[in-house]
Every structure is written in structure tokens, then in C-alpha cells.
């Protein structure tokens, strides 16, 4: 920051001490909004809610959603949050903000005034503008519809619990949750609708869908000749029917919702609800570094502006710097505190570095980022925020300086080698390789196994064939059997999982295990 701090007099300042009042909050929110406007942060309206720490734990455990259906796994989440909080292992939510329009942000009443200001800058303007601006959020989520949809989902699930029993619904949700990472469309864009509309359509869907399924699974023989089983006896090619589905389907939950033979209409609807929510969270899972980095970058800049304009005093500023430093701390891999790469630290470092490259480029920067060096920094950070996700953001913007500062190194771990190897470090030879590897590390497509629906045997035993496209010889974890078990519950007929490597089926898993 190229600003100099002048000596100041405490009595000139509003922001003193740690107690806050609603007037304070409104005052600072106005000031922050003004500054954010100067930085061209375009946001949804903010709905800022003051809550207690207990309510924060509630909010935490319902994946941050203001309403949600009931499920034991949220209870488990709650218990572990509560445990960690009570033992003092974890400070509660630095902030909690929901991608909705208006954008809901939670402030804890226990926070000091500094914290409230910080959270407003971070969440209500940082995250909020990210939600509104980033292309993934724009394409995949509809901020104005989500709260409505959650209300619909909650009501629907509890109605099902009344009609069909808590246990039946719970089992179904367990099964759906196991598949929720495979419940997203990566390429199609969902349309958003309101809760009422959703409820009305849901009625229609029930009737229509069931009809479709019935047609698909119709037991009336179609052109079927029982005496043509073998390949050579099949002169008419009757057993050479096209595979169904004709293209592999990546969205398992969608496929199940539309095609599972035995599910009742209400079960299909619940599959749909889980799928919709998974889809809603999909952009967040892909933009962790960017999202946190963006919000941290802006709270840092906004706090400095507030300080320079003498709206907060030195005490508040010091308190802020202490807290900010803790947030962006990155312990080394060998530290007992190491818990992976801190997305706040990496994101903040990258956005800060983009600004530096624009305003004070070095020779190295000119070589690496010829177009960025010397450009308008505000344009550039906005461009980065709008058009990238973690994977591509790192690929495009991770600079040698950040790699040096973070002291990144890449470790190659190959199970066919009994030693591990340092494949690259933060030096001239390694920059590109580290950047490549780190980008891959944040790619969901690489991180999660690629499992798609290959075929549903609609004319025969109704089994469902999945294919796991194996990369880098990485096999599936032991969780495979329980997940196949859940899949079997949903599909109702045998499940086959074929492991494909380089176009060849190398391994096959069955559920039930004695099948096949």
C-alpha cells in the first residue's frame, strides 16, 4: 500500500473501543459501501443479521443455509462444531455469508466493533460482489431463488416424513448424499424458479415422470424374439439394440431421478432436491481460493481506506492487523499446524500480487505477464474475479513471486516407486510445473473420481453399469462398497462399476457382490 500514516488524535475518531451499537454498524456499513463503490464492487443488497453464538453454530451446521431440511448428518456437524467451540479449539465463524439475493450475512453479537466492520467489508462487499460477478455463480446459481427453493425443500421433506416415515426419508437422503458430488451438471445451465412455481411444477412432474418411466420400463415385449439369444443366431440384430443412454451421463442423481425403475414419485423429488442443492454448491467448491482471496483482498484495502480517512483509530487498526495476519497465515508443510494450503493466504497473496504487477511491475513480471504489467490494476482484478475459477485462476495468475513467497514445492508420489521425489521447487525451472500441478490440485475434475453412467440394461436384467475413468492409476477408496450399496438402494437392481484405464476395462465391481 502506498499510503503513509499520519499522526492521529484519538478523539477525532468514531471507531474506538470494542462495543458496538446498531448506529455504529449502520454508519460503518455506509462508509464501507461508499468505498466499495469507488472500487467498483457491485453487490446484491445486503441483509445483515445479528445473531448469537448459539445461532451461529446452528447456521454452521446447516451448511450455512438459513433453512434446511432435517437430517442426522447436520446434527453430527452441529455436535462437532459445538465440541470444537466449547473446547476452544476453534473460533466461531469469522463470517458466514449466503449466496442469495439479498445477500444474507451473519454477524455474531460477541464480535468487537472491529470484527463487525471487518466482517461487513469481507462478507457483505467482498464475497457478495464475488457471488454477483463470478461467471460460475452467474451461470450455475440463481441467488434470488435459492431461499425460496430451500423453503420448498424443507416443507417437502417434512411432508414426506409425515407421509412415509422419518426412517424411509432418512435412508433415501443418506443414499442421495453419498452421490451428491456426482449430482451436478458440469455443462448445462439450470433454470431458476420460485418456490410456488417449483411446487406447482413438482405436481406436474410427478405425474408426467412416472408415465415416462413406465414407458421406458414397459414389460410389453417390443419386437422381441426369444429364440435369438446368441450373437450368431441374431441375424436380425435384435440384441444389438443401441445402448441406453446413448451418451455416458455424468450426473448420476439426474439419471436416477429420471430413469430409476422403482422409485416412487416422492422419492424422485427428494433425489431432485439433493441434486439441486449439490448444483448450488458446485461453484463454491470450485472457487474457494478465489472467493476467499477476493474477500480478504478487499477487506484489507477497505480497512486501510477507513483508517486513512480517519474513520477508525489506531487501536482498531492494530486489532484488525492482528486478526488479518492470523487469517492469512500459512504454516509450512512440516508445521504441526499445517492443514493444507490456506485458501485465504493463497488467494490474498495472488490478488495482492496482481495489483503489484499492474502498478509496480519488475522485469520478471513483464516477461511472465506482458499484458498485465502496467495495466490498470482495478480493471485487472475485476477481470480475474469475473472470468475464472480456482483451477484457471492459478493457471493464469500465479506469479513466480507468490510461489517464492509461499515456498511452494511439488512432491511426486508414485506407488510404483519406493521413494518419493521432489519434482519441482520454486525456481526458474520449476515455476511452470508447480503452477501446473497446483492448478490440477484445485481441479474438481481431477480431484474427484470421474464416474459416469455407461449403460442401463433396460431390456435385460435392468442392471446399471457405471464407468470409472481411471487416471494416474488412482484407485477408488474403500468407500466404494457403501456407495454402491446406496446406489443399489436407489436403482433397485444390480450395479456394476467398470474401471476403465486407457479405454480398456481393467476391473469390475459388483453390487450385490454375488451378482455377476
Amino acid at each position: 500500500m502506498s499510503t503513509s500514516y499520519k499522526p492521529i488524535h484519538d478523539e477525532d475518531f468514531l471507531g474506538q473501543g470494542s462495543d458496538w451499537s446498531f448506529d455504529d454498524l449502520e454508519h460503518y456499513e455506509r462508509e464501507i459501501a461508499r468505498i466499495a463503490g469507488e472500487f467498483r464492487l457491485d453487490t446484491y443488497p445486503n441483509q445483515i443479521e445479528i445473531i448469537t453464538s448459539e445461532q451461529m453454530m446452528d447456521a454452521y451446521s446447516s451448511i450455512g443455509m438459513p433453512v434446511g431440511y432435517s437430517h442426522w448428518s447436520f446434527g453430527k456437524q452441529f455436535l462437532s462444531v459445538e465440541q470444537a467451540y466449547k473446547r476452544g479449539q476453534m473460533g466461531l465463524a469469522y463470517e458466514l455469508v449466503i449466496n442469495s439475493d439479498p445477500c444474507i450475512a451473519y454477524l455474531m453479537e460477541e464480535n468487537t466493533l472491529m470484527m463487525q466492520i471487518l466482517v461487513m467489508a469481507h462478507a457483505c462487499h467482498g464475497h457478495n460482489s464475488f457471488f454477483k460477478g463470478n461467471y460460475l455463480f452467474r451461470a450455475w446459481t440463481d441467488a434470488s431463488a435459492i431461499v425460496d427453493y430451500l423453503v420448498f425443500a424443507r416443507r417437502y421433506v417434512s411432508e414426506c416424513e409425515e407421509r412415509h416415515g422419518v426412517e424411509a426419508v432418512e435412508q433415501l437422503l443418506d443414499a442421495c448424499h453419498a452421490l451428491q458430488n456426482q449430482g451436478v451438471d458440469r455443462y448445462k445451465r439450470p433454470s431458476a424458479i420460485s418456490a410456488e412455481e417449483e411446487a406447482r411444477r413438482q405436481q406436474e412432474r410427478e405425474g408426467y415422470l412416472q408415465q415416462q418411466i413406465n414407458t421406458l420400463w414397459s414389460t410389453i415385449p417390443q419386437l422381441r424374439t426369444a429364440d435369438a439369444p446368441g450373437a450368431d443366431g441374431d441375424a436380425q440384430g435384435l440384441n444389438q439394440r443401441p445402448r441406453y443412454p446413448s451418451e455416458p451421463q455424468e450426473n448420476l442423481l439426474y439419471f436416477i431421478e429420471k430413469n430409476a425403475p422403482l422409485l416412487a414419485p416422492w422419492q424422485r423429488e427428494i433425489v431432485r432436491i439433493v441434486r439441486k442443492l449439490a448444483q448450488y454448491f458446485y461453484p463454491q467448491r470450485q472457487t474457494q481460493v478465489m472467493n476467499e482471496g477476493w474477500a480478504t483482498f478487499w477487506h484489507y484495502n477497505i480497512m486501510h481506506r477507513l483508517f486513512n480517512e480517519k474513520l477508525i483509530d489506531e487501536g482498531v487498526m492494530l486489532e484488525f492487523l492482528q486478526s488479518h495476519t492470523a487469517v492469512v497465515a500459512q504454516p509450512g508443510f512440516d508445521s504441526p499446524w499445517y492443514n493444507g494450503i490456506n485458501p485465504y493466504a493463497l488467494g490474498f497473496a495472488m490478488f495482492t500480487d496482481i495489483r503489484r504487477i499492474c502498478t509496480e511491475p519488475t522485469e520478471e513480471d513483464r516477461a511472465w505477464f506482458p499484458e498485465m504489467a502496467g495495466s490498470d490494476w482495478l480493471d485487472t482484478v475485476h477481470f480475474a474475479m469475473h472470468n475464472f475459477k480456482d483451477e484457471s485462476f492459478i493457471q493464469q495468475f500465479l506469479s513466480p513471486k507468490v510461489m517464492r513467497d509461499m515456498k511452494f514445492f511439488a512432491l511426486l508420489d508414485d506407488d510404483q516407486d519406493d521413494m518419493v521425489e521432489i519434482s519441482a521447487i520454486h525456481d526458474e525451472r520449476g515455476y511452470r510445473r508447480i503452477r501446473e500441478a497446483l492448478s490440477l490440485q484445485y481441479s474438481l475434475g481431477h480431484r474427484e473420481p470421474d464416474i459416469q453412467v455407461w449403460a442401463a440394461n433396460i431390456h435385460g436384467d435392468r442392471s446399471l453399469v457405471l464407468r470409472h475413468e481411471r487416471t494416474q492409476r488412482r484407485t477408488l477408496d474403500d468407500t466404494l462398497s457403501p456407495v454402491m450399496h446406496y446406489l443399489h438402494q436407489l436403482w433397485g437392481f444390480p450395479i456394476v462399476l467398470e474401471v476403465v484405464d486407457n479405454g480398456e476395462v481393467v476391473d469390475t465391481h459388483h453390487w450385490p457382490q454375488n451378482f455377476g
Partner: protein
Amino acid sequence: MSYFIDRRSNARHKSAVNRQRFLKRYQKHIKRAVEESVNRRSITDMERGEKVSIPGRDISEPVFRHGKGGRRTVVSPGNREFAEGDRMRRPHGGGGGGGSGEGSASNQGEGVDEFAFTLSRDEFLSFIFDGLELPHLERKQIADMAESRPVRAGLSRQGVPARMNIVRSMREAQARRIAMRAPIRRALCDAQKALEEEERKDPVLRHPGRLRELRDEIERLERRLEAVPFIDTYDLRYNHLTDQPQPSNKAVMFCVMDVSGSMTQNHKDIAKRFFLLLYLFLERDYERVELVFIRHHTSAREVDEEAFFYSRETGGTIVSSALHLLDEIIEARYPPAQWNLYVAQASDGDNWDDDSIQCRQILSDALMPRLQYYAYVEITPHAHQALWEEYTRVQDRYPERFAMRQIVQAGDIYPVFRELFKSRQSGQEAHS
């Protein structure tokens, strides 16, 4: 644009449902953990909640994911001495290797670690006493008004301002206003009509006196309309409360313990745990539980808790002395019509030779008819003596209300306790 909402007064415990679902789903695990902890720990700690651990794998939520193995590159921060091409042994446990990249993918925190959480005190106790039932819980009716509770009883016209029922008062006021204004309005309407009629007439035909009269009348009526008060003391309604006598729901628990020389501190500790369990159990079902401690060697005395458990005595044992004292105390202070009476006795089984028969007589004839339940635990690894024999005969006579068990070591207490208080139905099944 921003706005603030203060949600602090909203419901807490939004996750209570989810929490209960979780506890229900893992009932078996939690119960096992609770039982272990009861046996392991001192029961004085039971006033608190309990930390419970469940193996992480039992409650994990499986998803498709990569396992170990294969070829992978992991980028980590904080390099100090590595240079490109360095080779080293695979770090043990793989914490820094495979864990860093993959682990950060989910915040589910899976793994084989224990999943630990804290049960609240109430949840803890309800797990401890799950499936247990208090024998012969009775609500005793009492005639005197010592226990009464204010109960809503409609509305009244008198009361203190704090109990004013605003809605009803306003409704009364509105009704009164309508009723009082209606005739005035009607008259006003008539007068206005008459005035209009008069004014419509040809100016020559108008009667100036009549006009003035009507105008005065209208003015007077309007004043009267305004004078109808918005609210009147007559309208006020108050929530009425009456005192209703309550059936009493209280119990007294007598702890009777042998403190003769043969009872070691270890024996007493075991007995203490038993008493505490019983106390917690009673406390759950009764609004009020009083404790009376009677200790005895050759003579019995009522003492406070501290002296009961920790003061040392020596000498022989005459159990009947305690039973006599018990009888006297009941007679003097706890009329069975008002109190649920429970007795828990702990002893090592020693008694003065001739005394056991006397004990049986007091119990059978004087005490048992008045008591809710009598639980006797004998803390001894040795063979039973005369007292056990005589008590067996009491049990034969009162199989429903008299129970006795033997405890050898501290770990037996909880199972014995469960056996003594398991719910009646399962108890009967066990008998038949």
C-alpha cells in the same frame, strides 16, 4: 443498499431436531459408551454431561473418492531445504503427502478418528436410565393447600395493570363505542337529512328558526359523538388467575448403610455410587426428592451426607437399629399419604446373630406396607449370611416392592441397578 436485522431473540437450537436425529441414529453406540463411562468413572461426575466417542468409520458418510496409491503430485508450501530431484523415503502415515491435497477437498473430516461430542446432562441421564422405570410411582393427593399453582381462569373486570388483557379490553371498548355511538349517529343522520331538505327548499320557503335549530342539533350531536370515550375503565379486562391445588409429586429417599468396622472405605464408595444412581433416577421423576441418611453399627443415627460417607466408626452390627430409626422418622416426618418413600440399604451382610429375624419382622410388618420400594445391596464377595436369608423371605412376601442384589466390585453397580429398576414389563417377562 443494506439493512440490518436483529435475530438474537429468534429461536436458538434450530439444530435441535438434527441433533436428536443423530443421537437416535447412533443410540446403540452412545448407550454403550455411556454404560462404559458409568462403570469407569466416579458417579459424582454424573451431574455433568458426558463426552462420548464413536468410531469415525461407523458414522462417516461415504462418497466416491480416490484411495491411496497411484501416481500423484502434491504441491505444498514452506520448502526449506529441498532441491529439485531430491529423493527420500515415503513419509510415514502419509500425513503431509496424500492428505494435503485430497483432504482439503472436503470438510467432512472423515477418517478413522473417533468422532467425539458432548451429551448434555439430560441427554446423558436419559441414556443411563433408558428403559428403566420407577417402581410404584404414585401421585399422592394432599388436602392442605401447601402446594398450589396459579392457573389461568378466564377474564375478570378487576385486576392489576400487569395482567391486563389488551386484546379483550380493546374489543370491549370497540363494542361499547359502537353501541354508544349508534343512536347518536342515527339522530345525526336524521338531522343532516332534515337540514339538507330544508336547504333544498326555495329560499322564500325556508324557516330560519328551523334551520338554526337543526344546525344546533347537529353540532350538539357531533359533540356528543366525540365525547364517547375511546376506552373506559368499564372496558378493561384482566386475565384472571386462580390458585389450584396440585397433587404432590415428591419423594424421600432413605439411605441406610452399615458403617461397622467390617465396612471398608472401598465398600462405602461402592455403596455411595449406588445411592447416587438412585438419587439421580428419582430426581428425574419427582419434582422434589429429599434425602435422609441413616448410618448404623450397633446403634443407628441420622447424619448429614458428609458424615454418612466419610466418618469412620468401628464396632459390631445391629441392622434392626437402623430399621427402627427409619420407622420413627417416617412416623414423625414423612406421612406416607404425602410422600413416596424409597429405601436403599447397603451392607456387607454382617449382622448380630439374633438380629436378622427381628429385621425381617420390622420390615414385613411395619415398613413394607408403607414403602414404595426397598432396594438392598450386599457388597461382599463372600457367602451370604443370616441377614440375606431373612431378607429373601421378605422378598418372597413382597416380590414387587422388595429387591436385593449382591455386588462384588464397583463395575457391578450399574448392571445391578439396571436390573433392579428395569421397566416392569420386561421385568415380568424375566420372571415368567
